């Protein structure tokens, strides 16, 4: 009985609010609640599915997620490799600094560093490297979302670096390296065939979970992204708060799609972990 109460409490505090929100969005998207709705309808879902922006939004979110993750892992692996074997404690401590930045502040900072009127552009202008701020390449609100990716890397690569360092210590990477060198391995071979695969495999659950939840990034793409395409969260927010109140049910339908996507991916991932 005691166990059941604990489970029920857990359900009430954590799962129920989420399901209530999702339930509300499902009802709203089918026209069953909401001041602007007039009863059950598939209309809002049909409109959403007919909107080509839905698919470009999902594709774009996927691109941002994969590109950010790729650079985060490359930087984190190289940095952790350097720190594990150089043992530079002061640099290790500096890694905690970006973790203290709220995403919005980080986005603003990178905006002021990378924008055509930003710090780098001004330095180049005053040094004579460029003659007009329009000569500076566009690195924010740009087609490749460079600004978003660099901000994500700045915010998250320290976390993965710390994680990799801890994992490397746990795996006694120093000892493994000595053995591999004795057996004739080069530094590059050790990095590519031992260090990198071992750390990625051991931390795979966290990497995949992080990749899934990066879909939910909002502030950074809002400030540094293009007007089109948009990340899923920005798309939902736009539909929810724009001038046309008839778009609100579509925003709920998109929120349901997003939740189903995340829950589906997480479930798939958990099953995969269990079967390994």
């Amino acid at each position, binding site marked *: 009985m005691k166990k059941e109460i604990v*489970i029920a409490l857990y359900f009430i505090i954590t799962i129920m609010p989420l399901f209530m929100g999702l*339930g*509300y969005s499902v009802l709203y998207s089918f026209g069953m*609640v909401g001041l*602007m709705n007039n009863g059950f309808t598939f209309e809002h879902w049909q409109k959403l599915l007919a909107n080509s922006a839905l698919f470009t939004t999902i594709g774009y979110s996927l691109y941002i997620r994969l590109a950010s993750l790729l650079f985060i892992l490359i930087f984190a692996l190289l940095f952790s490799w350097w720190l594990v074997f150089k043992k530079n404690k002061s640099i290790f401590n500096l890694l905690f600094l970006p973790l203290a930045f709220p995403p919005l502040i980080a986005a603003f900072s990178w905006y002021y560093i990378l924008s055509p009127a930003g710090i780098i552009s001004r330095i180049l202008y005053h040094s004579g490297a460029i003659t007009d*701020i329009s000569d500076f390449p566009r690195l924010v609100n740009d087609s490749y979302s460079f600004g978003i990716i660099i901000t994500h890397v700045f915010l998250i690569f320290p976390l993965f670096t710390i994680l990799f360092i801890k994992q490397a210590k746990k795996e006694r990477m120093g000892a493994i390296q000595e053995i591999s060198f004795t057996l004739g391995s080069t530094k590059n071979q050790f990095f590519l065939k031992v260090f990198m695969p071992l750390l990625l495999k051991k931390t795979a659950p966290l990497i995949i979970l992080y990749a899934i939840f990066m879909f939910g990034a909002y502030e950074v793409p809002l400030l540094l992204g293009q*007007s089109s395409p948009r990340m899923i969260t920005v798309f939902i927010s736009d539909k929810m708060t724009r001038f046309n*109140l008839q778009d609100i049910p579509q925003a709920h339908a998109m929120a349901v799609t997003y939740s189903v996507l995340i829950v589906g991916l997480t479930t798939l991932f958990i099953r995969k972990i269990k079967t390994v």
Partner: protein
Amino acid sequence: MKNIFYHLTIILFLTCTCSSPKQKGDDNNKNWQQITSDAKGKTVNLMMWKGDPLINKYMSDYVVPELQKQFGISLHIIEGQGNAIVSILMTELETNKQKSEIDMMWINGETFYQLRQINALYGPFVEKLPNNEYVDWESPFIAYDFQQAVDGYECPWGNVQLAMIYNSDKVQNPPMNLSELEIWVKEHPGKFTIGNEFTGMTLLKSWLIHLAGGKDSLSGKFNEEKYLKHSTQLWAYLQRIKPYFWNEGKSFPASIAQMHQLFSNGELWFTMSNNDGEVDNKMLQGIFPESSRAYVPEIGTIQNSHYMGVVKHSDNKEAAMIVCNFLISPEAQFRKMQASVWGDHTILSISKLPVDWQQKFKEIPDRKYAPERGDIQGRALREPAPEYMIRLFDDFRKEVMEK
């Protein structure tokens, strides 16, 4: 165990299903003296945009203390505008909340339209305000909001006209029509853009009216045929000049503050404002370059008013009405109209005011960098029906941003 989950699931769905909200009717038959006396000691929550330091100063240094001194009312100002207001009130109505967190709010056409749609505005109440006798109701720019009759559901507060702002050091002859703008934009790539927000869409509405034949060509109810015909011309025009916009038209500023910032740091040579007097205001704050000037092109721009609305399910409606009455008093309007205070044009008819106030209004110093109101009144266009704005917002994304 199964029972617990079964019951919790039932509760979950019951809580999600909301009943229709019940609205209190207008049962206020008190005279103004009773209203003033009953409102004493009340706190009024006003939700408004707080993005301008001069407007904030006007409210905190003048309106708030005067309301306390003259009427014993505490005015509590909460940050929020347009969609935030609609979202809060919508949620309150959907959850059948009897007493709103907001008593009154600063709104304009789009929010008025939305709040009327969800039946969240108290009214008609404006005729009960003693200072209503001075309001210039003969002006269609005040009596109609997005082609909808105000009908006493919102109290006018200020009147503005969209103005283009340019850097006169860089732009010697600002374009006066769409052809001149096209030539200018192509000759100066990257220095012009349109915000994907209210002011940008208001500019597009002005252009749509021009393409449809000028003044009053889009008056009356929304006309699908006219919209399709003239918006097609508008999108074709924008497609031609978009590659020469800021960031090659790949992204558009999401707020007017971002436009102003790009203008201030020299990335843009043009910005715009829904307040024709804002250039003076921004230069006094040191935000815009000294060479900034405002003008209204010969094809005209939208002129509209902004208002105060009272929430239908507020339990402080009387105190909110007193705040509205104070805001449209000659004293408060006179102060607000001065460029050093705010520079917002009055909604009062000067000729209806007592003679001493007429004199004071006439003595307000001229604007330095914005055109005089009398000079641009002939280029003022009325807001078309709200559906034009809805369609422009959607189609601008589809036809311009996503192409």
